[in-house]
């Protein structure tokens, strides 16, 4: 029961930069044992600039394993009908929509991220589109 992620970055910004390649197996904190829980793969369409939780930690029943080795993958796939707009974006933040979530960054059309999470309650994954145009996010979280 393994989950693996591989990244490959290639760039011609500098001749000597070459490529960055790394594989990882998602394991529980401090061990070589595989992560065993996931939210499952989700798809969510947003059509307003209002910030919304796409993952609410209090709903994931993961309190026993806060601050461990959780990871989330998110991708902006455009309008979900094949049109990907590189000029608009979804701001991804960590926190509570009722407070002031900390911005991570902007996922422009086609962009993706993979990052660790604390899964602490109120440290939700928050998404806020830059326009009212429809945009679809695909995402999945793995946790202990």
């Amino acid at each position: 029961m393994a989950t693996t992620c591989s990244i490959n970055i290639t760039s011609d910004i500098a001749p000597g930069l070459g490529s960055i390649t790394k594989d990882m197996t998602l394991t529980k904190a401090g061990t070589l044992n595989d992560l065993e829980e996931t939210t499952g793969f989700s798809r969510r369409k947003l059509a307003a600039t209002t910030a919304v939780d796409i993952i609410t930690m209090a709903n994931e029943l993961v309190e026993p394993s806060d601050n461990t080795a959780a990871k989330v993958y998110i991708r902006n796939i455009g309008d979900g009908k094949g049109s990907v707009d590189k000029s608009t974006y979804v701001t991804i933040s960590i926190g509570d929509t009722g407070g002031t979530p900390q911005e991570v960054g902007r996922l422009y059309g086609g962009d993706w991220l993979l990052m660790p999470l604390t899964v602490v309650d109120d440290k939700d994954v928050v998404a806020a589109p830059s326009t009212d145009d429809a945009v679809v996010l695909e995402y999945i979280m793995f946790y202990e």
Partner: protein
Amino acid sequence: MATTTAAVTLSSDLLSDSISVSASSTLMKAGTTADGLDMVDYGVIEIVTGDQFDLLDADNPASSPIAGVMANKANKVYIANHATDETYYVTIMIDAQNVGRLYAGDWMFIPWAAEDANADIEITSTTGTNKIEYALFHQGRTLNAS
């Protein structure tokens, strides 16, 4: 145009049907479709246990004429922990907000808003000395006059 491509492959057999996701993105400057990110800061550094460090400074160098020029752009950040002891990890924070832990062998790839001078990417090693590889792809940084 500089061309930088970031591709990910994710596979999991946690569910009854296996998950396999692949995505590839060409890293463009903010809001454009024709101009790629054309600057990079790349490094490898050992983070010793104890203090919290700014791995990437959102206002770098502070108080200079270029301070804040990366703010709210399409910056991308790659960080990998090359420690080999599975009990080792670093904690990644942005503006003192705990993002999560990178254990030995883990990597992350995120957009970075760098929205203000406090939005640094901070790193703390809690267990042992962790060798960290990082790359910042960006569009708007020039050298400070000496």
